[in-house]
């Protein structure tokens, strides 16, 4: 997942949780980057027609931005579920965040063929838990 997709996913999750635009500060916090870096990427997303930034209000994704953000969130859910249920990784959230930048959507699609994911994914993503709300963790760790 490239950097732009990581931003889109983050904006989408914040936008959905707050039912309004995502503030630059909240985006920067979630991604652990400086507000200046966040601003720069938000500008790029705006240039590509993926987001609209309104001063003092925040960022809203365009329809195209939402489509890409949902794909990125789905990729993230696949990585989390794969780590938790196939490799039995307990710290799957932390590892998914570390790995998402290196795992492409096409690779995630292949991993998706050996996990059980609900049809409602990624709508079941719970930002509070930073994981799919339907993720079963009862599987014995494989390690």
């Amino acid at each position, binding site marked *: 997942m490239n950097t732009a997709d990581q931003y889109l996913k983050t904006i989408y999750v914040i936008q959905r949780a707050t039912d309004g635009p995502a503030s630059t500060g909240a985006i920067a916090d979630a*991604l652990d980057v400086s507000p200046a870096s966040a601003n720069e990427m938000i500008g790029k997303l705006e240039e590509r027609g993926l987001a609209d930034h309104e001063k003092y209000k925040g960022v809203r994704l365009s329809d195209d931005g939402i489509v890409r953000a949902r794909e990125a969130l789905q990729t993230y859910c696949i990585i989390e579920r794969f780590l938790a249920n*196939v490799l039995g*990784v307990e710290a799957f959230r932390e590892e998914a965040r570390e*790995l998402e930048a*290196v795992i492409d959507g*096409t690779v995630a699609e*292949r*991993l998706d*063929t050996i996990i059980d994911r609900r049809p409602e994914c990624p709508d079941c993503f719970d930002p509070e838990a930073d994981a799919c709300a339907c993720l079963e963790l009862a599987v014995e760790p494989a390690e």
Partner: protein
Amino acid sequence: MSVGRRVTSDDQLARLLQIGIVLEEVVEARAHHHAESLDADLDDEVAELLADAAEESADHRARLEALIDDLGVESVPFDEIESLVEARYGRTRPEDFDGVLYDQLCNEETAYKFYDDLITAIEASDAEFTLDRDRLLDTLRSIREEEAEGVREVTEVMERR
């Protein structure tokens, strides 16, 4: 969260290599499954292609496991992964795949993309791994080249049909 493609630790590298092993297992399982379920309908050229793909995946998996061994990290519990993948594909009917050659092309392209991204992420990092960096990159580049060759082979077979 890690913004930007970099591999920064032994553990992260090991996990990515483990994912590579699972991807190779998926390729091998799909190739076997195609070969078995379509046995009577497969011509010699496609049958050979699938057999080669399965053999190559097993070889790649062994090379990735050797890298993980050198990192001193436990590898994937392979038997469990193998059973899981087999159970999954055992339930898949031939018509669930979009054609054997197309599926094989996706396998090779996906593997190529995975190794290409991994190599880029290692090259972008100045982290020192327990494993010799040159050996790591040489191995991964060689596997990537074989995946690229695999894409070419499948494409050629598809073009002839």
